[in-house]
């Protein structure tokens, strides 16, 4: 459904995406992860056809998304700054959506709105930050577009609503499978929901793999310095920390035999992503040396 080859996007002189290549063929929920300012939103906007690529190419349903009606009709991008005509109430917005999105789940949208306690008589501009996010997400979900792009959908929502909204996404996804790409700072929160991880780092795709594979990618080993150090020579080390008497390291998991005396532990996907994208060979501790 989505193909990117050497996709590049510059804003003036600053290069946001330098070489992004990946391919998504079937409906699934994908977590788009990356540090601040790495270009997650930019990538989503390119896919939605809101931005024009400066190099390489991006294709959605076999078409270049920029200015393509077929792509616009089947891709929805939900973001913070999404705006609706101020003359409409929420109710009118939802009623009108059906004209543009034939699959629009009007009833579901009204039910969800009622559930989260937002009056349909409100105007979009009057909503609080959290309510805006909830409404936008409901709107995006209800469009049932084959490609649903959610850029930081949970920003500003409180804990309880977040949990409900994740559940809503899952339920609707099960009922109507489609490609959902969700970007977030909080990978941990949505780890259970996603199938694949798309990790952006320094303008390229650092990693595009199933969640389970990511979880298996690294190991945390803790033990005596003399036991650990020889191990580190054989594998890629993401991180090491010596806080005598303990020596801790995060290493690549490539089937290396770990002596039983060394405590080893696999990491959660979000930790793996954190280490994959941490600045090269250094930690915050180095600053305080």
């Amino acid at each position, binding site marked *: 459904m989505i193909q990117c080859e050497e996709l590049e996007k510059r804003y003036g002189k600053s290069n946001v995406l330098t070489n992004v290549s990946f391919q998504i063929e*079937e*409906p699934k929920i994908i977590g788009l992860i990356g540090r601040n300012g790495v270009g997650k939103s930019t990538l989503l*906007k390119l896919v939605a*056809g*809101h*931005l*024009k690529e400066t190099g390489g190419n991006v294709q959605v*349903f076999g078409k270049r998304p920029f*200015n*393509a*009606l*077929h792509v*616009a*009709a*089947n891709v929805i991008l939900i*973001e913070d*700054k*999404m*705006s*609706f*005509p*101020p*003359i*409409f109430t929420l109710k009118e*917005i939802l009623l*009108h*959506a059906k*004209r*543009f*999105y*034939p*699959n629009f789940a009007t009833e579901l949208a009204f039910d969800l709105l009622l559930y989260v306690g937002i009056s349909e008589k409100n105007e979009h501009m009057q909503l609080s930050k959290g309510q805006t996010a909830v409404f936008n997400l409901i*709107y995006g979900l209800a469009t*049932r*577009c*084959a490609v649903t792009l959610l850029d930081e959908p949970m920003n500003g929502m409180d804990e309880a609503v977040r949990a409900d909204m994740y559940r809503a996404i899952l339920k609707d996804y099960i009922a*109507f*499978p*489609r490609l959902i790409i969700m970007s977030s700072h909080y990978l941990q929160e949505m780890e259970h929901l996603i199938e694949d991880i798309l990790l952006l780092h320094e303008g390229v795709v650092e990693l595009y793999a199933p969640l389970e594979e990511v979880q298996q990618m690294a190991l945390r080993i803790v033990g005596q310095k003399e036991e650990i150090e020889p191990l580190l020579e054989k594998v890629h080390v993401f991180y090491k920390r010596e806080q005598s008497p303990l020596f801790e390291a995060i290493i690549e998991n490539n089937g290396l035999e770990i002596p039983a005396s060394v405590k080893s532990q696999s990491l959660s996907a979000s930790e793996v992503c954190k280490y994959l994208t941490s600045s090269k060979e250094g930690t915050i501790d180095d600053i305080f040396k």
Partner: protein
Amino acid sequence: MTSLNNVSLAQNIWQQLLWKCRTFSSTFTTVLIVQIIFSVLSSGSGSSGGSYGSLLYNESIYSLDLLFIISIFSAIMLGWLLATQSIRNDNYSVVTTNFTETVSTLLFLVVLSIFTVFSALSSLYITVFTRLLFFDQVMVIKSALFEISTLFIFLIFVLIAGSASYFAKTLFDISKITFLLLTIVIIYSMQTGGISESTFFEFFLVQSMGEMLGKVLLVLTIFWGLTIAIRQRREVIRR
């Protein structure tokens, strides 16, 4: 897998046009209120008086002229407003592309112009009728009460004004320098080159209807074509 939506270009433009008639409904009321206020404030388009020997006369003229000028100004303002970024962004919460967005807005301008013409006509009838009811004075009907050719000319100038201003704002957004230079050139040539507003009117008001239609179509094609060409390339930036 949810099914893919198939939308044709014409369908999308039509849907957006209907949508815009609602989202921009305040433009209709703007035109209406401006027309009503000017109809109430002014007593007709003007008056002339004089004497002809022992015959002293005083004529109050109610014509479409004042409403026409007001409508032109409204169209210029609304055309400019319709091209603003925030309005464009609202558009991206429904299915749209640069092309369909621009074309549907231009078509909306046509709808707005047609509305403007008929509301001007209504305003004139209403003021005249109230005057007829409450003032006891000879009322002279100096032209046909309903004249297609007049309305058509009215429509065309309002539409051209709106389209030109929509184009101007588009140009302004993409390059303020070009816009400024163009404005200076136009003002300069109006000051010195003998070009005035009536030059524009005279350009269009030729005797043969066919020639006029040709000129109108040519001018609209230029404005619309350039507008579409420029806006085609724009990215969506929500702030």
